[in-house]
């Protein structure tokens, strides 16, 4: 109608599988760098997982420096940061015992009361809770990967499940690596984002796998590489379209959704891009190592 649907050719014929070695090397390097970053630099853990105290205030005509001077006189482990705009300030305090932390919040609040328009939020996570939250987050991600593997295994052949999980692990590690590079805060919401990325990426992969399975049945004589290429091309416009609409919504969330949700939106944006990439360049080529034609064997 508007001619824009011609951006993506109706029957694209791009040799994706021919590029697989280059992208495989790229991904392996990226994953190695990610793992190094995660072990050396680590993630910017938020208070959900590190424990500690966080207070967000909006100030009346007080600069962040002024507040910092007031607080650092009394607390030696306090850090301040502007949050979205000049008058919104985030105050973080290191973890102490539960009782002390609660008292510290009171002291901080009393100390800066006059300079503050509103205490927008205060959060405190004790050491036992933060380690529990980390454990549960880790469990959620692992169980999700296992459950997805089982589902794919039931619906497809196990080789597809393997390919899907390789792609998913790739997505999770790569995303975490980029979070470390950009120093994005890692919180409960990030875990949610990562699980959603897993769901999204697998969604993409499943659509392509579905087509691979269909084409395996349809073209019994065709080379595997060709079948995979054909399947990726068949589903290409859908892959691109869905990524674009999802990214449009996520950018809207990133720009307009407010400061609190921004790390979540950023993580999702990174993950959607990686997930889309991995479905085409990691999940499908992984199937090649099996040299299989499951339907032929069964017939």
């Amino acid at each position, binding site marked *: 109608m508007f001619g824009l649907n011609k951006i993506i050719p109706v029957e694209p014929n791009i040799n994706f599988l021919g590029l697989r070695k280059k992208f495989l090397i790229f991904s392996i390097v990226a994953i190695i760098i990610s793992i190094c970053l995660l072990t050396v630099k680590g993630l910017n853990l938020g208070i959900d997982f590190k424990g500690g105290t966080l207070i967000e205030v909006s100030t009346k005509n007080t600069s962040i420096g002024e507040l910092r001077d007031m607080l650092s006189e009394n607390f030696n482990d306090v850090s301040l940061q502007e949050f979205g705009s000049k008058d919104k300030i985030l105050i973080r305090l290191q973890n102490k015992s539960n009782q002390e932390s609660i008292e510290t919040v009171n002291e901080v609040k009393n100390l800066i009361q006059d300079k503050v328009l509103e205490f927008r939020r205060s959060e405190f996570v004790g050491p036992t809770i933060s380690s529990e939250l980390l454990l549960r987050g880790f469990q959620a991600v692992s169980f999700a990967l296992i459950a997805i593997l089982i589902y794919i295994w039931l619906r497809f052949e196990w080789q597809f499940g393997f390919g899907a999980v390789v792609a998913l692990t790739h997505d999770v590690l790569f995303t975490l690596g980029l979070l470390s590079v950009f120093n994005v805060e890692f919180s409960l919401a990030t875990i*949610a984002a990562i699980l959603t990325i897993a769901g999204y990426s697998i969604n993409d992969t499943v659509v392509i796998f579905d087509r691979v399975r269909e084409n395996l049945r349809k073209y019994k004589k065709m080379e595997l590489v060709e079948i995979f290429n054909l399947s990726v091309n068949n589903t290409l416009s859908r892959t691109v379209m869905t990524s674009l609409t999802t990214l449009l919504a996520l950018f809207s969330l990133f720009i307009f959704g407010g400061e609190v949700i921004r790390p979540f939106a950023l993580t999702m944006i990174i993950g959607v891009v990686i997930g889309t990439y991995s479905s085409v360049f990691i999940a499908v080529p992984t199937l090649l190592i099996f040299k299989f034609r499951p339907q032929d064997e069964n017939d």
Partner: protein
Amino acid sequence: MQKYPLWKSFTVILLVLLGVIFSIPSIIYNDDSDNWFLKNKINLGLDLQGGSYLLLEVQLDTLYAEELENLSESIRLLARENKVKIINVKYNINDVTITFENNIKIKDIKNSFFQMYRGVSIQENENRIIVKLDEAYKKTIQDSAIKQSLEIVRKRIDESGTKEPLIQRSGKKRILLQLPGIKDPERIKELLGKTAKLTFHLVDDDNTAALKSNIEPFGKIIVSDIYDENIKYLIDKRSLVGGENLVDAKGSFDQTEGHAVSFRFDTEGAQKFGRITSNNVGKRLAVLLDGVVITAPRINSAITGGSGIITGNFDAQGASDLAVLLRAGALPAPLEIVEERSVGAGLGADSIAAGKIASFIGMLLVCIFMVLIYGTFGALANISLIANIFIIISLLGTIGATLTLPGIAGIVLTIGMAVDANVLIFERIKEERLKNRNVYQIVKNGFDRAMSTILDANITTLIAAVLLFAFGSGPIRGFSITLSLGVIASMFTALMLTNFLVYFYLSISSKKELNL
């Protein structure tokens, strides 16, 4: 309309209409309406409406220590009855070892003790008795402590005037509190931070030597003053009467003493109190709250009416808070705040506003994009998308789910992902167009072929969302709820509503070619 069953059209239209109608309560959002229909509105999470979330942990170790002390006290009494001297008592975390001067009566003591406490494990070893709290016994202590703590927390919160609090047990030894719309979480934390164990003890003013050398004689303890730690009192270890005998307490004002808390004992407490005060005229009576002295007035005359006042350096709030604590009763063990998340109303309102803008703009962008790419079919998908949003809102409202900030993110994400099913269908239709001529056949094949892909793709997303619900807490659960509802609604709108709309469009436009 040809080739489209009437019952199906009817069902689709009805479901979408229901979605729109039941979104109304959430869109109007009338706070206090009692109307059955308007009550079906979305609950806002604490992060959106403002409020406090607190997670409290019952300090069971204190309780076990106390229990061990009680048990060793019983053995001490038994030893006295049997005229055996105890030479040493040693406490550990889970047990207490009592050493006697000889082992002549040790079997008798053990047996009598066993008669009294069947659940406690007791062992003898030469002239020692070891009393141990085993897991089962600890569990009974734990359960009753949590139950009692829950009740007292509930009373304290109710007395503080918080509206619609949610108070529930969480795990083995924790209590979860959600206090919507609360302005001053510090005061609540203070109310919960005290065990509020009120006890009355006689003060020993004669033995000044013990106080000076800081050595506690048998049966006495040294405690400090609440306002000045340097002021010490030597008091009887045994409490004469305690907070459990109180029937009422309230903040009052005394002309000479200022703000005070007046209290009244029940019959038993009144009798005890009367007896103590009449036997000990001239001595001082210390009033202790959680082991520190609030006040220690001299007993001028017997108090037999069963009521009195506690004075101290109270202000009005302090006196009324203490009264609240005394009325609610003492906690069996101290509560420690292990997690707190408080959001002010300002931030909540900002988050809602930002969420609305992000949803609206996200929706607009996706809709424009769909029309640019798919033309008329894109417009049809957009109608489905809008219906999808209505259905999510109406479901959230009718099942009484809680909308959180991550929940809003889930809706925005759904907007982006919901068109996926439509895209899958349209792309299939495009492919089918190359093989077929009849538009109805093309459309039918497109939908049929896309169906299994749509199911597979969405079920994997649902798996992730369900696990998120199982392992997530609070706000994150809100995200998994909106995401799951969004995924389910998008399957329905794509497979049913878009399907209906496409057939409807084809029948009225009577086109022989598909513009896609």
